[in-house]
């Protein structure tokens, strides 16, 4: 099963994890990204490419589900403005055994970082700036090709 959501509403982690567990496998790996406030960020804004975003997430989840024979793959990504401490992204991979779940979860978030059309803008001290892409993200995604 593939579950995708691109939403302005906060991510309900308990509901997302409960849905993943209900898929009935032995191993559930999750990744949650949270807005960090440790370097003075007051607000994060996420812009995306409506239509292409959903297609990209569907493809990332479906590719992982096929490659690792997952019982389910979930990607929930928030868009719009959010505060430090709020969840940006939640990824879950459910499989009979742990190595498939762990690898699929890591692959989905790594590939998402470089192939899903999202752009972050940070507000600090009233001034906003677009976040630059990191070369480390390209290298992390290339591991799974």
């Amino acid at each position, binding site marked *: 099963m593939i579950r995708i959501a691109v939403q302005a509403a906060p991510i309900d982690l308990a509901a997302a994890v409960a849905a993943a567990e209900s898929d009935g496998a032995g191993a559930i790996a999750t990744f949650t990204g949270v807005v960090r406030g440790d370097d003075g960020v007051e607000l994060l804004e996420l812009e995306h490419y409506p239509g292409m975003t959903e297609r990209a997430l569907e493809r990332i989840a479906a590719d992982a589900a096929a490659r690792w024979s997952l019982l389910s793959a979930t990607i929930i990504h928030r868009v719009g403005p959010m505060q430090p401490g709020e969840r940006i992204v939640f990824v879950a991979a459910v499989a009979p055994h742990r190595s498939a779940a762990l690898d699929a979860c890591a692959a989905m978030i790594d590939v998402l970082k470089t192939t*899903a059309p999202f752009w*972050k803008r940070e507000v600090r001290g009233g001034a906003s700036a677009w976040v630059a892409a990191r070369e480390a993200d390209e290298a992390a995604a290339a591991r799974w090709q």
Partner: protein
Amino acid sequence: MDLLYFAWVREAVGTGSERVDPPAGVTSVAALLDWLAARSPGHAAAFADRTRLRAAVDQVFVALDAPIADAREVAIFPPVTGG
């Protein structure tokens, strides 16, 4: 052809979308950017440094030398930074 701009590209151009009808000689994303740069100082600024730009044709990522024949929607944006 519908054009879409995102993030700082959108801000530099001054709009998130526009509809254009490029001449027949404009056959690649790169050629489209050359042609668009003449439309306004904002376009010229946005497309000045091609290494900072990425593109999608009909919602599929492509290299800047990719063809745009039959494209309905071309999007220009910086490298993605989600997750």
